[in-house]
């Protein structure tokens, strides 16, 4: 059964596009057929993050307006078999698409793909309404900042009002050290306000900037801890329970490395 998930946040710049790209890659790595859809018409970015910019011929608006077939607009990722991108139009704006048009498009995509991920634009206007229209559920992305949390809270209300099921949460740019010092909102602080299930706690790491500039999402990188968290998010999205958060893993110290080397504890231990 295929599913359409909208990735949204309210506030801009918290990492919706990065999350969409990485989650798409991670789900495709699990063998799923995934279409990532850039709904940020007029401000398209998802193609850049995925490194597929120079292959765009047709876009989402062309498909909705019937100027081309869906297959013609979908861009296949060379690195992964099941991953396709439907890019946004850069020369139009949000009003070029209606919720009805999006609903039809998503229905068409769901026939061919296991997962349809929609990268929602910031804000609560037309672009948001379009993005939510065809979705079966929502993932809310936020950062541990009061302004992002406030907007996420508003968006959760709007998602519920749109009669989608309870959304899930990904907290981006999380810094465990700052939380330990009391300088950043903790996971508990955030969940106290938003009160929805947490499915991702993505550490703040320079990998993300490097990978975005290269057009190769961090989820491809076996060694990146950010990529590891996105791969774990994909497992949680697929329904696997009790997948620990990378950000809360006990960091390697000389002592734990020594212990592991001596075979005292097998895998890296996990703190909850």
């Amino acid at each position, binding site marked *: 059964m295929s599913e359409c998930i909208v990735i949204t946040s309210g506030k801009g710049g918290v990492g919706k596009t990065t999350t969409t790209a990485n989650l798409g890659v991670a789900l495709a790595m699990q063998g799923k057929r995934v279409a990532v859809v850039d709904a940020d018409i007029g401000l398209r970015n998802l193609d850049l993050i995925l490194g597929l910019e120079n292959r765009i011929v047709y876009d989402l608006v062309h498909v909705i307006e019937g100027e081309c077939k869906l297959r013609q607009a979908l861009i296949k990722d060379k690195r992964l078999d099941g991953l396709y991108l439907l890019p946004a139009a850069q020369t139009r704006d949000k*009003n070029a698409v209606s919720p009805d048009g999006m609903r039809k498009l998503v229905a068409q995509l769901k026939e061919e793909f296991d997962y349809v991920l929609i990268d929602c634009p910031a804000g609560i206007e037309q672009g948001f309404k379009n993005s939510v229209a065809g979705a079966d559920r929502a993932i809310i992305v936020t950062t541990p900042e009061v302004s992002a949390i*406030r*907007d996420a*809270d*508003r968006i*959760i*209300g*709007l998602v*519920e*009002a749109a*009669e989608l099921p309870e959304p899930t949460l990904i907290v981006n740019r999380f810094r465990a050290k700052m939380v330990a010092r009391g300088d950043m909102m903790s996971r508990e*602080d955030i969940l*106290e*306000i938003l*009160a929805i299930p947490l499915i991702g706690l993505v550490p703040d790491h320079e990998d993300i900037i490097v990978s975005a500039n290269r057009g190769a999402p961090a989820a491809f990188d076996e060694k990146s801890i950010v990529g590891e968290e996105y791969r774990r998010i994909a497992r949680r999205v697929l329904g696997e329970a009790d997948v620990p958060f990378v950000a809360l893993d006990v960091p390697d110290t000389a002592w734990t490395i020594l212990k592991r080397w001596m075979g005292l504890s097998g895998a890296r231990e996990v703190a909850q």
Partner: protein
Amino acid sequence: MVPNAPPSGPTRLGLKHTSSGLVLSLPPGQTFEAIRTVLRDHLALSPERYRGQTLKLDLGEGQISLFDLRRVLHVLRDEFGAEVVGVHCTVEALQRYAEKELKLKVHVSAPAEDTSAAVTPDTVTLAPTTSATEATTEVNTEVNTEVNAGILSHEELPGGDDMGDRVMTIHGTVRSGAVVEYHGDVTVFGDVNPGAQIVAGGNIVVLGALKGFAHAGSRRSDSFILAFDLRPTQLRIGKAIHLTMESAPERGRALNPQMASVQAGSIIIEPYRGRPPGMAMREVS
């Protein structure tokens, strides 16, 4: 004085995005021409904003005449493509409209005992033709009852025809941007988050954390606000306003129910001792 000059007063349109839809309140005491100008100004920037949308009109005290109301509906439909699916107005206004149509004095009967029909207009003696906006009119008897569709529910409790006796209950979190307005008491089984607004004619009770804006006693200044965890952005009771102190107390896990009430004209917050104000004396006797 020039005839037809718009009376002084607020010329702003109130536009509320509630999750149950858009509610447009008309500026009170304006002529149709003035309202149309305000509407056009308001929508000049994005004329397509309301196309295909459904909205409700808040008539407030019902100062607009039925004739003008019909014209406003036409403007909204023909010029802006918005469909008006309901109106909010007071019982008094509804009564006035009915009287104008019937040319007879209208008496509002007490609500029937049947709780499921507590707010249906059946008990208001009205001919069908009196409804202000043809067949699509949905009359919510009193002031606004904005309910965040999906998470908030609204119940009328039986007993008493005094509006203040009625309680609206909300199950779940009231989130940023949500507006809850009710003429009676409001009880929330959950949190009220920062950025959310609760305005009640009577008391507000939050069985959770109150972190948003709460205005109790918009009709009765002897109202109170009670919360298990009282950390509001702002409290108002009647006309009194309470700005929260600079440093809100740290989040504590222990329950610390607090109650805000008006004493000598200003809002006092104190630990809740098990009784709302005014109850203590009666209980003792």
